[in-house]
Every structure is written in structure tokens, then in C-alpha cells.
């Protein structure tokens, strides 16, 4: 690599053989790392703020590993009963599990212990929140499309595992709140048809709460789930590197290239620096914001509960549906089917996750689009997709609110029962309304783009014609912006098929074809297609003509020309 033009300001110069060079040679002699390194050291990553969301999730996971290891050094995952004799005076002499006692020890007697506990809990919340937002980003921009469908599936699994990891961790301190959470989980398991009680007895090693659940959850929390998470995160990142990151369309950016900064040094510094920022922020949160103060709840006692019990936020949607579910419980041939528990708590999460996980394949089936896509779409460019996720978010958000119905009732002085009745209707009607609104909104934004392309942007300059008509001056948008807006597919609305051939014989897949054609029609029919070259030229020609006709006519005015304050000469309004 001699005399190549790099993006640095000075050429790399060979210096005298250094220790690092010798070490690198030693390694390469044995593992031949240079082959892989040469491709990746200067690998290009495109830049956009929204590409950072997944990074937050990744870095919070690393923080979780680090702070988690610290906590394992003191935490005792045991349900053996001990009599508390630590620093927290109120509980001295109280019977409690070793798990709870050691959590108190970490909180009160280990220097930095409470800090690490709080960092760990905050990072867990951040981990899951960042995964959610990252998922939304990928969804709304169409980044899950071919060839990235598998990475989307892996991402959905990561979200599921992250939530499970959060729940198992939340349960470990064996305090009153987490015990209540486990009790509810036990009730949910028992609601499963046929195998419910067996699930519960096998997990808890007998009747709830038993004396093995904490060590078992501990093994799941610190070994099984983190192992799976690590493996899947590894796969997620490898696919990211293999596919190369998606990018926004723009001048010079196409489906065939990726434009951005090199991994070494820019991205390494930015992403590496960002790790420290995420860690720093969680550390400050751990220092300043109390989270899960387990000493306030007391040890677990199956006969006690506090009012206003809430799970961590990511379980809120589940909690919400459990709260607003009608009391459906049926007897079938002597067996009991507690649907008011099973449907919302066991089935709904599975259905929701499946819908999200398989969405890329569903969309692909509808659109029939089998091409690779590396340019991102703006949400408005796929109104139905956008509206679908907005509907899901509405559903999720309403359930979340329902999960805090007791808090809402207290804070807003509302009737709890009425909130519940309202939510039962709202979770059905709300998403439908949200879908319609979001879809039309996206389409009207497409119209807005069309306006900008054909008639230019609104300058805010108001023109008054000699006969008194007011109009707003439009000026053409830049070539770069026009190109960016038009760098999207021209969609073809398929004709509705009857599924029959010319002789009226239905094809074997007629029903499926008809459904697909109808969906496809719904998908595209209302979209605004970008203008053709001819339309664009005609519009520009027209605009040019307008400008020429009115050239010299305009006088800037601030409204004071006629009240004698000043003349129009030397008017500088437009410079303001």
C-alpha cells in the first residue's frame, strides 16, 4: 500500500520496527490475522444519530456483565432462612432468606455495593428500553428488509431474552415485591391448560415458593440467559458487519455503496467513546437515582403485599392486559380453563412477539418484493407499515397505562372501575384509529414531498398582486434535497385479480392470490408516486416562467409603507 490516498492528512510512514509491530508479527505468524484485519480496520460505517440506538443496547449489556460480576461476589442465591444481624437496624432479628440478607449486605455493608446494584438495575432498564427503540428505528426505516430478515429475527429474540433476563434478575433479591412478582408468575404458569401445575411444581421444586427457585433463577440469570444473549449478540453483530450497515439515501449514496467514516480511527473513537458515555450516565444514575430500594419492602411473605405493586416497566403491558381482562374462567369436562389469566399473560406475549418477529416475511409476502434493500426508507414512504407499528405502539401504550390503573385512579381522582371499562374498549378501538390516522398522515406527508418537488418550498414571503390577492412565494428546493426525496421506488399498483384464467377456471391458489392482490392494492393504491422526469421539468418550466413574469414586481413590505412611518425605499425586511 504505497502512495495511496488515505483520508488522513498525513501519509502513514514506516518507522523503526516497534515492539507493537513485533507483537503483531508474532500473532500473525500464528493466526494470520492480517487477512481479516485489512478488510475491517478501515471498514466504513455510515453516520446518523438513529444508528446509535442499538449501540446503547450493546453497551448497556456490557455494563450489565461488568456490574453483574461485581454483584455475584457477594450475593448468596440461597433461600435458607437466616436471622438478620447486619447493619440495617430495623430488620435485626428478623427471619429472612440468605438471598435477601445478602442483598441487604451489598446495599449497606459493601462499599460501592449499592452503587453497583443501582447501576445494574438502571442499565437493565436502559438495555431493554434501547432494544425497544432500536427495534422501532429498524422497523420504521424498513431496515429489516432483505437481506436483513434473519438479523431482525435475532433481534426479536434478543428482546425476548432481555425481558426474561430482567424478570429473573428482578426476582433474585427475594424481597416482598419480587416475591409477589414470582407469585404472579406462578399463577400464570398454573393457568396453562393440562401442564400448568406441573410447570409450577417443576420450576419451584414443589409448591410455591419452595426453597429452590432463587438458586434456579440465579443459574438462569447469570449463566443460561447471558450465554444465549452473548451468542445472539455476536451473531447480530457479525451479520451487521457482513451486510454492512444500511444508509439514508442522499447525493452519492446508492444501494451499491456505503458512505461514511472508517472503523479505525473514527468509528472506534466514537463508538468506544460512546461506551464510556453510556457507562458514565448509568454510573451517575446509580449515584443519584434510587432504584428498587429492597430494604423498604422487607423479606418475602406470601401473606403480605403492598398497594400500588408494579412490575418493572417492560412487564407493564402484560400486567395491563391482566388487569382489564374480563373474568373468563370455564369448566370443560371437569377441568378448569382460567382464560382471564392464560390469554393475557401467557398467550398474548407469544402472539405479539411472533407478529413482530415474522413481520418482515409477512410484508414480503404482501409486496412480493424480493430485492435487496440497503437504503433506508422514511416512515412516510411505507404508510401501511408505519401505521401498523403505530397501531401496535398504541395497543402497547394503552396496556401500559392499564397496568397502572390503580395509580391513574389515585393521581387523577378517577374511578378505577371506569378506567378499566374504558381500557377494555380503548385497546380495541385505539389501535384501529391510530392505524387510520398514521396511514393518512404518512400519505399526506408524501403529498407534501410532492408539493416541494413540483412547486418548491414555502419561503414565508407573502406576495400581494396588484388586484389584492395574497400568495406565498415558493422557491425550488436544492438539487440534493430533490434527489434525496426521489431516491425511492416507483411503486406499481397491481390490478385486482379474480384468480381465474381467461376461461374462467380458478387457479388452485385463487383464494390466496385474491387475498394477496387485495392486500397489495391496499398497500400501494393510495400512495403518492414521485413525479416523472417530464412532470418535474414541466413544473420547473412553469415555476421559471412565473418568476420571469413577476420579476421586478415585488417590493418587500412590512406593512408600514402606507401609514407614513417610512417609505418603501431602502426596505430591508428580507434581510431580517
Amino acid at each position, binding site marked *: 500500500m504505497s502512495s495511496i490516498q488515505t*483520508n488522513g492528512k498525513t501519509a502513514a510512514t514506516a518507522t523503526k520496527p516497534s515492539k507493537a509491530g513485533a507483537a503483531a508479527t508474532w500473532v500473525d505468524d500464528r493466526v494470520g490475522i492480517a487477512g481479516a484485519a485489512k478488510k475491517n480496520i478501515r471498514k466504513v460505517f455510515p453516520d446518523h444519530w438513529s444508528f446509535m440506538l442499538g449501540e446503547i443496547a450493546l453497551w448497556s449489556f456490557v455494563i450489565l456483565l461488568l456490574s453483574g460480576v461485581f454483584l455475584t461476589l457477594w450475593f448468596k442465591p440461597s433461600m435458607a432462612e437466616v436471622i438478620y444481624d447486619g447493619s440495617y437496624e430495623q430488620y435485626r432479628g428478623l427471619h429472612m432468606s440468605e438471598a435477601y440478607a445478602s442483598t441487604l449486605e451489598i446495599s449497606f455493608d459493601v462499599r460501592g455495593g449499592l452503587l453497583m446494584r443501582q447501576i445494574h438495575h438502571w442499565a437493565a432498564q436502559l438495555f431493554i428500553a434501547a432494544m425497544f427503540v432500536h427495534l422501532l428505528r429498524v422497523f420504521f426505516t424498513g431496515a429489516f428488509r432483505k437481506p436483513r430478515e434473519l438479523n431482525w429475527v435475532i433481534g426479536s429474540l434478543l428482546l425476548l431474552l432481555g425481558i426474561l433476563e430482567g424478570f429473573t434478575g428482578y426476582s433474585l433479591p427475594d424481597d416482598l415485591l419480587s416475591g409477589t412478582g414470582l407469585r*404472579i408468575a406462578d399463577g400464570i404458569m398454573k393457568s396453562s391448560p393440562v401442564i400448568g401445575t406441573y410447570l409450577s411444581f417443576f420450576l419451584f*421444586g414443589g*409448591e410455591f415458593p419452595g426453597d429452590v427457585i432463587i438458586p434456579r433463577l440465579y443459574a438462569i440469570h447469570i449463566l443460561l440467559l447471558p450465554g444465549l444473549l452473548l451468542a445472539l449478540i455476536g451473531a447480530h453483530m457479525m451479520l451487521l458487519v457482513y451486510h*454492512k450497515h444500511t444508509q439514508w439515501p442522499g*447525493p452519492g449514496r446508492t444501494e451499491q455503496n*456505503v458512505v461514511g467514516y472508517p472503523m479505525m480511527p473514527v468509528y472506534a473513537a466514537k463508538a468506544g467513546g460512546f461506551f464510556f458515555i453510556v457507562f458514565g450516565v448509568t454510573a451517575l444514575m446509580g449515584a443519584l437515582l434510587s432504584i428498587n430500594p429492597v430494604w423498604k419492602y422487607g423479606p418475602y411473605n406470601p401473606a403480605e403485599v403492598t398497594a400500588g405493586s408494579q412490575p418493572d416497566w417492560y412487564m407493564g403491558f402484560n400486567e395491563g392486559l391482566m388487569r*382489564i381482562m374480563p373474568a373468563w374462567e370455564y369448566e370443560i369436562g*371437569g377441568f378448569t380453563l382460567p382464560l382471564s389469566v392464560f390469554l393475557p399473560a401467557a398467550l398474548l406475549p407469544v402472539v405479539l412477539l411472533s407478529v413482530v418477529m415474522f413481520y418482515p416475511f409477512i410484508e414480503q409476502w404482501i409486496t412480493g418484493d424480493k430485492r435487496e434493500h440497503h437504503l433506508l426508507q422514511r416512515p412516510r414512504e411505507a404508510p401501511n407499515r408505519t401505521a401498523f407499528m403505530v397501531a401496535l405502539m398504541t395497543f402497547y401504550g394503552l396496556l401500559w397505562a392499564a397496568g397502572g390503573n390503580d395509580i391513574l385512579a389515585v393521581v387523577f381522582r378517577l374511578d378505577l372501575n371506569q378506567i378499566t371499562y374504558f381500557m377494555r374498549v380503548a385497546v380495541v378501538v385505539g389501535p384501529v384509529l391510530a392505524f387510520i390516522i398514521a396511514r393518512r398522515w404518512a400519505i399526506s406527508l408524501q403529498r407534501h414531498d410532492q408539493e416541494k418537488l413540483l412547486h418548491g418550498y414555502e419561503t414565508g414571503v407573502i406576495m400581494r398582486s396588484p388586484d389584492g390577492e395574497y400568495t406565498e412565494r415558493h422557491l425550488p428546493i436544492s438539487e440534493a434535497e430533490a434527489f434525496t426525496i426521489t431516491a425511492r421506488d416507483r411503486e406499481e399498483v397491481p390490478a385486482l385479480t379474480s384468480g381465474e384464467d381467461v376461461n374462467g377456471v380458478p387457479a388452485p391458489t385463487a383464494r390466496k392470490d385474491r387475498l394477496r392482490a387485495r392486500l397489495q392494492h391496499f398497500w400501494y393504491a393510495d400512495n403518492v408516486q414521485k413525479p416523472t422526469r417530464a412532470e*418535474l421539468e414541466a413544473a420547473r418550466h412553469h415555476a421559471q416562467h412565473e418568476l420571469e413574469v413577476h420579476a421586478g414586481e415585488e417590493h418587500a413590505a412590512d406593512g408600514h409603507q402606507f401609514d407614513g412611518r417610512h417609505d418603501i425605499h431602502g426596505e430591508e425586511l428580507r434581510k431580517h
Partner: protein
Amino acid sequence: MTHNPDQPALPGNEDAVNDPHAPVPAEPIDNPGLPAHHWRPTDVDPAAEKRAERQVATLFGIASLMSILFVVAYFAFEVGEDPDTFLGLGASTLFLGLTLGTALLLIGIGAIQWARKLMSDVEMVEHRHPAASSDEDRASAVAALRQGADDSGIARRPLIRNSLLGALALLGLPAIVGLRDLGPAPGNALAHTVWRKGMRIVNDVSGTPIRPEEVEIGQLVNAEPSVFFDADENGEPIMDGHEVLVEKTKAAVILVRMQPRDITPLEERANWGVDGILCYSKICTHVGCPISLWEQQSHHLLCPCHQSTFDLADNGKVIFGPAGHALPQLPMGVDDEGYLIALSDFEEPVGPSYWERGE
């Protein structure tokens, strides 16, 4: 292709313009190509460059200082029985977190500042390749696989293949059966509690037996079976701590006293109460939270977890919320000494519903 991926993308980058194979054709507007690079102040003004350099180094310097302060705070502030406080917060946690957080944050900000101000910001272009392998590669891979399969003779020797598949499939059995001892079979454990005929109903904190006249109208008393507090002849508790937790999950009860005229008992439950005092399971029939929010006036008992509401004057009927069936009632009487006792165990399983509940 003559393009070198290490080369900076320059205005008018030929590769980027109007590629005829582009899935999204650059129409109706031609791709103008990458915009010209703008130099930053730090690129052209040595003073600005120097300033940025000092800035970054200062950030790193303060970060080092913070790490040292962390160590100071670690040894300076007491935790444990008599912790140091600062503005009402634990001083140790606060200052360890502030110093650690600031150190980390400044390293991060410094690194990013370095990248933004001083590292080259000329964008580079890299080419994408289809995710799929080339046709030749696919063909070679298939050929290699076929050769391998042929060499093994797996197609020609169905006996070996099938017996191997069978052996592997049956390995699933040890994997599943090996987990059998995770827990005992449920049996009918959930259908019974420790309540027995004649067992006293005692206060859940003190363990003292309760006389009917001690319970006032409108009052709710959290209670438990006396066996949790009883000792054997050696003075040792009959049940150990852990067993108590398991049994308490099912046996916890509440006593409520209402005006006898307000109560509308089922026919067979006419004698289950004493002077308007009724005894119900404390465990919600929805998913098992202990229920404790008592509305005296309406005789409603509300579960704080999912707001199932039970009418205790009407046999524990569900009047609101997701619970699927009424709250079980414990038949109750008074013993010779005038204390409240159970007349039997619950007649139905307490707590959340499950498949075999009706059996």
C-alpha cells in the same frame, strides 16, 4: 472496477452516479454525487487545532483525577451501621458514583471530541456486494457436500443412517427424563391446606387466639392457623420456617365482622360464621396475591395486584376484575374456651385456578 475503497469519495464519484443496475434508479433526478467536503476550523486553523487538542487532553486529565478521587472517597466514607451522609444521601454511594460516572463520562466525551474535531472527517465509500455467494461458489459447495455425502455412503446405507437417527432421537429421552426430579408431581397438594377441624384462628403477627368479641364491626383481622406458632413438647416449633412459607401461601386468611343482617350466606354456609364474623382465604383466586384492601362500608375486598373485587357479604363473589371465581370461605366456629376455630379445611382449593382444580 478501478475503485479503491480506501479512496475518499469525491464530488462526482462515478460509481455512485446512475448505476443502471440500481434497484432504485436515480430518476427523475440524476444522482448529483457526494457533496464537496467542507473543511472544519480545526483542519485549517492551527490555533483551533491546538485548542481542540488541549480540550481533549483536559477532559482525559480530569477523568484521571476523578479516578483518584474515587479511591479517596472509597476510603474516606463509612458504610455499615453508622454511615456518613451528605444532604441526606449515603455519602459513600454518592461520591463513588459521582467520581466514577464523571471519569467514565469525560473519557467518552474526550474520545468523541477527538474524533469529531481532530480525526479526518472525509467520508469514504465502500462497495456493497450481494449477500448471496456467487453461483460458482454455490455450485462448488453443493459439489463438495455431495462428495462428502457420497464418501460417507449415507445414502447407500440406510441401515446405518436410520439406526443413527433413531439413536440420536432417543437421546432426547435421557435429556427429558433426567429433569424429572426438578419437582414432585402436583398430586392434590394444591387442594388442601393445614386447616383442620378445631384449629384455632390466630392473629398473624402475635399468634394469639382470637375471641369473637375482640373483632369489631367493620374490622378486618389478618389471621393464620395456630399451627404456625405452636411448639412441640421440647419447645421447638412444629413447622420450620420454610415449611411455614409454603403453607402460609395457601392457609393465610382474613376475618371480617359485618352486621349479620347485611350477610346473605348460601344455604349450606349459614353456620360458617360467628355473630357476623366470616373467615375467607386471603389468597386472590386470580393469580395468588394476598388480598388486603377492605372497604368496610360496601363489604368489598380489593386485590391490590389486579383489582379483582370480592363481595364478602355475598359469599366472596367476584363483583369486579379478572378473578375467575369466588374467594373460598373457611367454615368457622368457637371452641370451649370461646376462641375462633376452623370447622374444617377449605372445601375447595384456594388461590389461583389451575387445570385440575375442579377434580
